[in-house]
Structure formats: C-alpha cells, structure tokens
C-alpha cells in the first residue's frame, strides 16, 4: 500500500528552487502529523511545537540532501524523529528498545484497526501506555502509512526490528482495547 503522501503531488522541486509558496504548502501538509508524532512521543506540548519548528528549519537547510522527491515525507519525519530524540530525557529509550522477532505474517493494515467513537479516549490513553519505541513505529504507521522500510529509515533501526515492534505494538494495543471493552460490558 503506498504511503499517504505518495498519492499527493508535493511541490518538492519548487521548494528546491527556494519557492516560499512551495515550502508553505509542504509545511501546511505536514505540520499537524509531525506535531502529533512529536507530542505523542514526548508527551509535552511545548516540546512538540519545538520539534515542529526545528524540523522545518532543518528541512529548509538540508533539502539538498534529499535524493528522491517522493520520499520527502519520510525524510521530514526522520528529521522530526532525530529532534524528538534530542528533546527526550532518555534518548536511549526511544532508540534502543529491543523486542523479540515477530512472526512473518504482518498483513493487517492500519485500516483494519477501526475505533468506535466511545473508544477514542481509551485508544489515546492506551497508545500513551506503549513503550516509546513501539509508539514511534505505530504512529508512523498510523499517521502516514509508511512502508516498513521507510519506518526503519525514519527510526534508524533494522527492518526486522521495525517489523517486530509494529507486530507487538498492534497486538498490545488491540489487547488493551479488548480488555477495556470487556470491562465496559
């Protein structure tokens, strides 16, 4: 499944030429997803806003290092992830939280996890309870539907690690939501 941004025509080429309108369009597209990603990782509004600002400034400065225009989204999130790590009190917690290997079958996409209105608050709470490394992978998967390879690139981890983190994160989240449902019933 292509990532969310792959379906859009992003004015990356114009931004390379220094067109402010192109930058404005790009930032408008990504400001909220990046803020959500940063806030949900760091659990701090101010830090979330700082990450957004630092990410935008770094993107303007280093756009020349982007090789493929259609990877702009994952490239921008990679910068945001680095900024989050810099903001985090325990960066190692975000980067190096190893989990066992996941089974090969990983076929359920984000659309299969649909949440009822009454479950929304519980979903947000349960998401916050996951370890930061799992949360990061899950957020990238939910927000932009990045491929596993792109998530690995963004989080600077191995593909197998991303696979296992995503598997266990989804499993844990589903389990927590089901337990909530049973308690409510």
């Amino acid at each position: 499944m292509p990532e969310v941004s792959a379906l859009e025509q992003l004015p990356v080429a114009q931004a390379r030429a220094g067109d402010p309108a192109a930058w404005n369009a790009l930032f408008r597209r990504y400001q909220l997803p990046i803020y959500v990603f940063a806030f949900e990782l760091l659990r701090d509004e101010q830090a979330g806003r700082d990450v957004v600002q630092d990410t935008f400034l770094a993107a303007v400065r280093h756009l020349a290092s982007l090789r493929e225009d259609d990877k702009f989204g994952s490239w921008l999130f990679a910068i945001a992830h680095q900024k989050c790590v810099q903001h985090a009190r325990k960066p190692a917690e975000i980067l190096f939280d190893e989990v066992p290997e996941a089974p090969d079958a990983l076929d359920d996409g984000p659309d299969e996890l649909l949440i009822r209105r009454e479950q929304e608050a519980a979903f947000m709470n349960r998401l916050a309870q996951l370890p930061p490394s799992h949360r990061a992978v899950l957020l990238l998967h939910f927000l932009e539907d990045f491929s596993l390879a792109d998530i690995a690139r963004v989080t600077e981890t191995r593909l197998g690690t991303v696979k296992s983190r995503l598997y266990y994160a989804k499993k844990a989240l589903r389990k927590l939501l089901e337990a909530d449902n049973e308690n409510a019933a």
Partner: protein
Amino acid sequence: MKTPREILLARHRAAAPQLDAIRHAVVNDLSRPTPGGAWLANLVAACLRLLTAPWRELVLPARRTWTALAAVWVLLLVINLSQRDPVSSVTGRLARPQPVMMSWQAQQRWLNELLTDRAAPADTDRPRNTAPRPRTENGETALV
C-alpha cells in the same frame, strides 16, 4: 468508526493555530531578501555541496561495496604482515657489524694473510722453465 489517523489528527487539531504561526515564521524567514553578506554564506554552501557531491553520489550509494573493498585491503595487509619472513628481519638487524663481529672479521683477515704467506710456493716448488736456453749461455756454463 474512525481510523487511528483520523482520531490522532482530530485530537490535536486545537494546536493548528500555533503550528500555523510557526509555519508562517519559517516561510517569512525564507521569503525575506538575503542580507548583503549572505552571498558569501551561499557561496560557501554551494562549494560544500560541490565538494560533498562525489561523496554522496559515489560513496554513499555503494557504501557496502566500498566497506567490503576496504575490509579486503585490510585483510590483505594483515596477511602480508603475518607472512613476512622473520629471518630477513633478523639479518636486516645484523647487517650492521657489531664490535664482536668486527674483531672476528679482523681476526679472519689476519688468518687469511697468514695462510696466504704460508701457502705461497717456495722457489724449489716453482715450475721449471723447460724452454731451451740459447747456446751461448750453454757455453758460459761449461767454462764455469
């Protein structure tokens, strides 16, 4: 029913005005005309980009290949060093004559000279000249 993406974005939509302000600030900074001295910074940045271009174009895309090549070279160097003949290094060290060797050499030279003198053949041992002498000389001998 909502997707997690919809829930996450909806949950934080209240932050949009602040994010808009951040975006405007960054974009306005971009559209502001560059100050007089900025051309130098731009030039330096362009030069840096030019210098790092080969690194990005040649090395980074094939970094595994380059690393493997470097590893092979290191391996070859290690093998070469480990298989170097230890005798040659010893002879190399002894190439410069030590004081003991000097005296030994001097002794050898003296012995050689001595032996050369002894080995020199005496007059009686020298091969005789068998060529016939002139007749005139024969007569002188007879007179004597």
